[in-house]
């Protein structure tokens, strides 16, 4: 691996900056993600920071079923994100479509939409409806270890 790539990976593992993308969710996962930033869980102390642009992101936290309207936007956001970029599917909807898998506006699941742009995308799945904040932290920590 080139030096720059190693540096990027080290940066990602040390302090992952995350960009949150809602592709058609009920808010539960989104609220639980925000919970991570509040004093009880406080993930900023382990370096996780929410950023306002995908270009600064090491990871995309994706919630929602990937609606027909959101699909091209999600793909564009993935393209814009600086690589390497980890796609984190948060919640049952992002993993499989969940309870909405047969809804008329369903255009996912998220991993299919992302793989259409990049077949080698690194994707992790955090199931749950919604996953508890502890589960999210554990999943991200585990993923960073394995990277």
């Amino acid at each position, binding site marked *: 691996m080139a030096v720059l790539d190693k540096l990027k990976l080290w940066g990602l593992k040390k302090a992952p900056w995350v960009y949150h993308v809602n592709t058609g969710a009920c808010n539960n996962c989104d609220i639980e993600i925000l919970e991570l930033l509040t004093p009880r869980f406080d993930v900023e102390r382990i370096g996780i920071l929410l950023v306002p642009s995908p270009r600064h992101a090491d990871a995309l936290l994706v919630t929602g079923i990937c*609606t*027909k*309207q959101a699909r091209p936007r999600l793909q564009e956001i993935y393209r814009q994100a600086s690589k390497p970029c980890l796609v984190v599917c948060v919640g049952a909807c992002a993993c499989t479509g969940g309870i909405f898998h*047969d809804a*008329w*506006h369903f255009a996912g699941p998220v991993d299919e939409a992302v793989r259409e742009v990049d077949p080698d995308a690194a994707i992790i799945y955090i199931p749950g409806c919604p996953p508890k904040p502890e589960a999210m932290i554990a999943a991200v920590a585990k993923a960073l270890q394995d990277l």
Partner: protein
Amino acid sequence: MAEDLESAVQRLKDLMGDAPVDWSRPRPNRVYITVGKEDAPECARALFEDFGARFATATGSDVGEELEVVYHFAYDAVGLVANLRLRTPKGDPVMPSITPLVPAAEWIEREMQDLVGLVFDGHPDPRRLILADDWPEGVCPLRREYRDDA
């Protein structure tokens, strides 16, 4: 003296006049009034302005040979929900819009256009509201044909 449920229902009946082709009251505080579609705007206006009810929402459905709209009005003072029902044959999905008279209906009429394929004649802004930009025109997910194919 504050109006009670019975006097409110009676007042509503008087306001609706001859328009209703059907009137049902399955519970004391629920009234279902069926009118011809041409009478819908005036009845809706009367419910909103004269009766003083609040426009809550509307339900558009495919009921087989016809398309149906039920406008739901809530008269909060006595907890009454008055439902105004109208139908149109599927082959003629045009209904007069009540939005010019009841502004609160603007979005829900647009939604019913998208999902049920109704056309609200006279609607001030009949653009697509809820389906994706690339959703095919003319495909209405709440139509029975769509459900049966899906």
